């Protein structure tokens, strides 16, 4: 209990004084996880919608695979990305290992199945609702997908947020491919792991509270944005 209070106090102090290190790793956390969420959404949302609308033989297999990939341990993803991007690996010449880019790549792999799966669920329900109407109105295929994506945008935003949430709280993969290098690839979660390793629980907790606050802030901001959009449709 004492640790938690000290952590809260220290978190407050770090935030109020805009501690330079804190700002740096927080910005990198945001940059990496928002980047991964954007890329993961660009892949996962249309994929989910496509799976919801189209019937093809391997559809069930693909969906089962997607659900299985949701549970992929980040540390395994990290290891695979590391082996691929290591100087001795097939993509080593790119020199991306231990850079934020490699971290984004690892997180995209982790969160895309989540985004696609949640999107698939949402679009499938909407498609069941809209099916008769869209067929009756003779909407073309691309019009159907556009309508479903647009009318399902709140649920899709939830899908993207779920992906972002998983990304920003993830440590296993980015620790391996990012390396937790000070002033280069250190983000909130890897910093927390480091501080915990040092036994500096109050600092680790302080960073943890900043992480929680950040996740809440991003969710709230998007919520408010969607409200504004809703109100200003006219």
């Amino acid at each position, binding site marked *: 209990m004492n640790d938690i209070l000290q952590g809260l106090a220290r978190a407050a102090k770090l935030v109020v004084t805009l501690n330079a290190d804190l700002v740096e790793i927080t910005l990198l956390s945001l940059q990496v996880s928002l980047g991964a969420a954007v890329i993961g959404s660009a892949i996962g949302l249309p994929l989910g919608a496509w799976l919801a609308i189209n019937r093809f033989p391997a559809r069930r297999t693909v969906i089962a695979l997607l659900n299985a990939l949701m549970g992929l341990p980040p540390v395994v993803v990290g290891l695979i990305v590391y082996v691929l991007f290591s100087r001795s690996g097939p993509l080593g010449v790119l020199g991306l290992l231990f850079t934020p880019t490699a971290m984004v790549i690892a997180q995209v792999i982790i969160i895309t199945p989540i985004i696609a799966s949640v999107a698939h669920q949402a679009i499938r329900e909407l498609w069941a609702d809209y099916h*008769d109407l869209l067929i*009756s109105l003779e909407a073309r295929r691309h019009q159907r997908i556009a*309508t479903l994506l647009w*009318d*399902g945008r709140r649920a899709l935003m939830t899908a993207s947020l779920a992906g972002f949430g998983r990304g920003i709280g993830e440590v296993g993969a980015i620790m391996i491919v990012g390396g937790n290098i000070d002033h280069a690839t250190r983000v909130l979660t890897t910093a927390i792991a480091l501080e915990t390793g040092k036994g500096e629980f109050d600092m680790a907790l302080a960073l943890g509270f900043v992480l929680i606050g950040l996740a809440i802030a991003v969710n709230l901001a998007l919520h408010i944005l969607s409200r504004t959009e809703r109100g200003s*449709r006219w």
Partner: protein
Amino acid sequence: MVNAMVALDRVELRRGGRVIVGPISLRLGGEGITMAMGPNGAGKTTLLRALHGLERVSSGQIHWDEDARALRERQAFVFQTPILMRRSVLDSIAYPLRLRGVRRGAARERAAECAENVGLRVSLRKDVSTLSGGEKQKMALARALIMDPALLFLDEPSANLDGRSTREIEEILDHFRARGTRIVMSTHDIGQARRLADDVVFMHHGHLVEQAPSAAFFDAPQSQQAKAYLQGDIVI
């Protein structure tokens, strides 16, 4: 019935090995209001959906008359449970025009007119999910009418509505019939059928039992099932 619109030739619809409708053979003319009647599960909805092209016909054929091309190409369907889009009332009604490439401003203007025409007097900026049952039905009707359909299908448009809303909807249908819109609908409400129908298609257990002009049907039904149904008996 001046001219022929569509003819069904031994049409059958099966789902999962079970026959839902048919085999059924009938002809529908090109004018007025055709009322599909019959007890629950008679196949009225399936028949309407098959005519509209929403259901795959398992066997038999549906022949559309050459002269009925305009009807076939400009049809709309109002479902028993209004399909609610996650949109405002105005945008829901405007949606069919948007699909046809009409600009948003123009589509919304037309949508507002259509809402007025069907007597939908609510704030059109509201989400459709907040509408009452009658208002939702009117929204769906307005959405169907915005395309100015030549042929309009309605599946029990006034089920679960109060008397006032039912009358308003019937007035609208009367108005469009007078303007020449061909209407094919189903109903449970015998009074409504008497008020609106020009001819009646009476169905039971997926089969066509009787087809007759409205006056003849209500004065002297030919089949036992229709007689019993019109007397208010439970028809099994």
